[in-house]
């Protein structure tokens, strides 16, 4: 059983912060490069996997890898400053050192999606996990059919990746629908006003040959799934990524356990079929 040569699964890679981008009030993206070349060479991940990011001395936080798997040499994470660790991470500047453990968990089966249309639905700070999948698809655009992105946030200011939203809006091979919650609009706002599930229901979406990828707060997921099913999506064609509280990321600490599943090992990517089988404990 024991192989003392096994690696310490709790020891993070040391990363250098290469770039800091302010995405929205309190929301930042960090681009990280491996400090050790060997680590970088042996590292690869698939869109949808997550990692543990550490502000050494303050702790670790779980986020999905926000950069696409098609772009090598760095990883990015986007997070909202909310607790002790994210506050510490948001103080980091270019050139600083931080920790990174991963990639962990399963991933979106993008190989199986070849030739299919992709519908991305995200709410608020849940666009980052999906951004990895979106750019992975767009970097290999010829593999997929229509690409539609529905993205909503509380207010216009809370929309993240504003430059990339503009880029997606300008592309002819992407349909972007943005929305903000009622009251969150500005006089200049040209997008929609309404909650994500409602906007999805009112949009011209064809479920045929389409995969829906939904990511957002639990309440958004709960209300969006029935809308999609009404539009004709089969449960097995609806994907989401769960983010339960985690510590270890490797199926030991017990925190993300839901029924017989561990979000960190059996997820974070689940289909609506999987979710229907899980007890209501997430």
């Amino acid at each position, binding site marked *: 059983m024991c192989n003392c040569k096994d690696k310490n699964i709790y020891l993070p890679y040391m990363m250098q912060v290469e770039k800091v981008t302010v995405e929205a009030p309190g929301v930042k993206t960090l681009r990280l490069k491996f400090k050790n070349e060997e680590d970088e060479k042996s590292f690869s991940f698939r869109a949808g996997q997550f990692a543990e990011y550490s502000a050494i001395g303050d702790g670790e936080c779980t986020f999905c890898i926000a950069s696409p798997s098609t772009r090598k040499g760095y990883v990015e994470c986007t997070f909202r400053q909310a607790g002790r660790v994210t506050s510490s991470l948001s103080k980091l500047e270019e050139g600083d050192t931080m920790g990174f453990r991963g990639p962990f968990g399963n991933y979106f089966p993008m190989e199986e999606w070849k030739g299919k249309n992709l519908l991305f639905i995200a709410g608020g700070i849940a666009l980052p996990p999906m951004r990895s999948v979106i750019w992975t698809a767009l970097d290999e655009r010829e593999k997929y059919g229509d690409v539609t992105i529905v993205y909503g946030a509380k207010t216009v200011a809370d929309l993240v990746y504003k430059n990339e939203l503009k880029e997606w809006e300008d592309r002819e091979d992407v349909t972007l629908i943005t929305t903000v919650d009622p009251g969150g609009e500005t006089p200049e706002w040209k997008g929609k006003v309404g909650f994500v599930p409602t906007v999805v229901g009112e949009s011209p979406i064809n479920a045929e040959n389409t995969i829906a990828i939904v990511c957002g707060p639990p309440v958004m997921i709960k209300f969006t799934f029935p809308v999609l099913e009404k539009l004709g999506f089969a449960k097995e064609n609806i994907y989401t990524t769960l983010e339960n509280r985690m510590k270890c990321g490797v199926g030991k600490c*017990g925190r993300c356990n839901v029924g017989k599943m561990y979000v960190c090992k059996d997820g974070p990517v689940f289909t609506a079929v999987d979710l229907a089988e899980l007890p209501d404990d997430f």
Partner: protein
Amino acid sequence: MDTLYIKKSDIPSWWNAIKAAHDHVVAPVRKDKVVEFARVESYEQVATDYIQTTRSAKEVLFPRTERLFSYKKNGRDIEVQDFDPESVPSQVLWHVRPCDAASLFPLDAVFNWDYKDVMYNTRRERTAIVATSCATADEYCFCTSVGGGAGDTRGSDILLTYTADGAIAEVMTEKGKSLVALSQNLFTEYTAGDKDKYVADVPRVFDVEKLKEKMHGMFDSQVWKEQSERCLGCGACAYVCPTCSCFDIQENPKGSCGERLRCWDSCGFAQFTLHTSGHNPRSTQASRWRQRLMHKFSYIPQRQDSLGCTGCGRCSRACPVDMNIKEHLSSIDKIQ
């Protein structure tokens, strides 16, 4: 398996040989009213007149607080110091109960499915287990209801069953054989029949196979709320449990140096699953109590072919409001 016999008067010299061949022997020691596992220097220190230690033996393999790595900040750079397997001592766990030895199955499983936990595994590899059959039991014990027994050999390298003038030694593993080899001349073949008459009779109170099946469909049952109405959420049950393995990861910074630690945790605490956003999947004590029992009797068996309980009864003895797991499981068993 070899079944051997050692005379009572010879046990101390075998014990001394074991002590000399290892860095430590960890055994139950009486401290005032409680008996706890501790490193012992002489055979006389070992306590034998007790039903159960307050805490289990699991901390020998999975310490309450354990360093994952340490670090040192140099300007904008950070140096990390990895766990050193060579720092782990060789040790013998002496006089553990069969219910503690049996807890190694769920512990081995969780620390080894998929990712391997090198800290746990190194300790496990360097620890030999000499268990002792229970000659007495109390009303909290229910090992026989969860597949174990007062003379169960599972998890032991050697199981000793004390007779009037010596001990029957069931040598289960290669590690056990090498412990015997330290004083081979003190052992003889044992052929005097069954050990059962020296082992406590622990009545079976429920059928665990039926219970597992029943619990599978009980997520929405009212029973969790009824049973947990008085639960304080203090976490004592998890702290004394031989199979509870959930942990937290915490930082311990000291200026520019520090360490990252893992510390025992409990699904009974409200903060265990609390998200930073304020969302808490298990926001009531009833849902946390359900998690405790479902994890042990439904979720673990579905994934790992073992139970998350060995029937040691420690959680019931430690509970400040007398929640008795044996009674709670029996009452679930009786629900139609």
